[in-house]
């Protein structure tokens, strides 16, 4: 507000009014968009506590419009009164949930390991695979991002069938690793480029090998980037639906497949669908709230050169 000094009282007040108007506009816009972002989540969580008439009337506010009930959670076997008893829906749900956890965590770990190694190599040494040099190799890895899943889906269906990998966790883990690998390499390349090579040179003068220097000196510095890449991979693999729907049937299907398979059948029971959706999105909402810093860091990598 450097120019303000030169204004007199009359226009000064006008200035302040404009400032207040600006504040109100900014916070109004922020609140509006926050509402747009949060309302669907709020709606899903509250619907899981509604009974049929509440759903039909479109009641919104709990304790005001309707009395929360455990209907939706009971149908999943996760309400307080059913949690101690034996429940087939809950076993089914837990099985899918564990599939999702195992598959997304393993795929993300594998992708971060493979991707970090490759990104480190590409940022430090010059390679030559046939006619391909470093920029070509980097491009080869990153170009996988363009590949739409549908191109690989049907060949993999046939290949997995003959390899007996259909409907197996391993099959999905391998595919998911492939889909997130370019993103990991993208993030990690940026990360390693920011670490000065003098660090490794000093370590190697002290007698460490390349791998020793990488594991003991570089990795700890690059850890935040690896966490960012891991979490971003986790989000993508946890939510993946297309491959899971095509390649799994009974044993290895993940939560998104379970959610999707409920929608058509037996008329929609809104409360149980809401409970299921809530349970499916809850882990990532928690991750998003707690680790927002890393997610933003991961997505911002490469945006600013």
């Amino acid at each position: 507000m450097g120019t303000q000094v030169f204004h007199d009282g009359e226009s000064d007040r006008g200035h302040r009014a404009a400032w207040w108007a600006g504040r109100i506009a900014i916070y109004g816009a922020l609140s509006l968009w926050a509402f747009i972002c949060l309302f669907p989540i709020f709606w899903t969580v509250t619907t899981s506590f509604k009974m049929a008439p509440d759903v039909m009337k479109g009641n919104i506010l709990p304790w005001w419009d309707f009395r929360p009930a455990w209907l939706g959670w009971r149908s999943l076997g996760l309400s307080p009164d059913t949690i101690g008893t034996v429940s087939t829906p809950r076993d089914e749900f837990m099985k899918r949930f564990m599939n999702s956890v195992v598959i997304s965590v393993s795929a993300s770990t594998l992708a971060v390991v493979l991707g970090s190694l490759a990104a480190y190599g590409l940022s430090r040494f010059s390679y030559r695979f046939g006619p391909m040099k470093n920029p070509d190799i980097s491009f080869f890895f990153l170009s996988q991002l363009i590949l739409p899943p549908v191109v690989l889906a049907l060949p993999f269906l046939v290949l997995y069938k003959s390899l007996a990998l259909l409907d197996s966790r391993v099959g999905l883990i391998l595919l998911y690793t492939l889909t997130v690998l370019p993103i990991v390499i993208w993030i990690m390349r940026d990360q390693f480029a920011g670490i000065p090579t003098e660090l490794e040179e000093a370590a190697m003068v002290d007698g460490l090998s390349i791998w020793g220097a990488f594991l003991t000196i570089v990795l700890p510095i690059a850890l935040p980037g690896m966490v960012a890449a891991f979490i971003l991979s986790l989000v993508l693999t946890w939510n993946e639906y297309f491959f899971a729907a095509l390649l799994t049937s009974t044993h290895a299907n993940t939560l998104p497949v379970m959610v999707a398979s409920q929608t058509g059948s037996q008329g929609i029971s809104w409360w149980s669908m809401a409970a299921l959706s809530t349970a499916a999105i809850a882990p990532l909402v928690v991750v998003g709230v707690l680790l927002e810093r890393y997610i933003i860091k991961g997505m911002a990598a490469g945006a600013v050169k």
Partner: protein
Amino acid sequence: MAGSGDLLHVVTNDNLPARRVALGRLVMNAAAAILILVAAAQIADAQGWVDLGFANWRPTLYAYVLWGFAFCWGQVLTRGEQGKRALFVLPAALFVVSMVVFPLLFGLVIAFSDWNLSSPDGRRFNGLANIRQMWGDPFYWNALLNMVWYTLAIAVEYAIAFGLALLLNAQIVARKFWRVAFLLPLMLSPVAVSWMVGKSMLEPRFGPIARLARTLGWENPSFFASPEMARLSIMVMDAWTFIPFMMIMILAGLQAIPRELHEAARVDGASGWRTFWEVTFPLMLPVSVTAILIRIIFKLKIADIIINVTSGGPGGATDSVTSFIFREYRDRSNVGYGTLLAMVYLVLIVIAMTLLMKLADRWMRPRH
């Protein structure tokens, strides 16, 4: 990323003992021999020349994995320090090549055949019949056209994302809260979104959005009845989940702009509006182009929401290429035709993306 010369200089001792090199060769050759033998035995078994009782192709897969490890080890043995360097990139490269190049080549074979997975006949080569079928398939062309519409919607998403990034970059309190709130839609799975928003909130009778529309004077709100409306609803849902992604990339770009530039503009007497168009926006071009290109790449994969909310309807109006092929396979379990459609789509994407990147490159060059 210099093309030649290592960034990290290592003094290497390339005096490898001859026995070590020989051992490395032996390891690599033995593993390759095992792979070839197992594969040959499996092929012979599959063709029915000999009966070795293989249930599936797993043995070949194991032999291939063994070869992969042996190859990496052999590199270290035969090439010493150079081999240890190659070991950084080699695993990822082997993984991607075996997971992409091989299936793509295999896909090319499938694309020119008639292969119904549920019938016992197996694969039959049918030449160009699939291409001819594609040429006369109005639904496929319609799906391609829809992809153009979906991609164009990115312009609006970009404008909103830019606005939100500017808001988050302004002087505000509780910045972290707003950022987390704006980020959350990205964390939700498209399948859950299609249920939460598509099925539940857009429900014409009691969904909250339908009720809002009714209060605003739209008598019979239906979001998936007319083709245009259905397409728009899908676009809105997809935008809802992906706007945070562009927003964060743009926000990162905004935060990298030095404050002094804005102060200088203000001292020169430029209004906020002019500062934005003449300082901020031009500086944001490279980031914007990156964000939009990545967003296009993700947009071209759109499928989950469409499969789960409209399954392409009404009359294919909301079909994306991916959802169309998905249904094509689900309904007829013919992998041949679906693979051809996917291959054609891939070729179109690669051409379009190459053109776009070239254009973006040329457009941005004078500003460097």
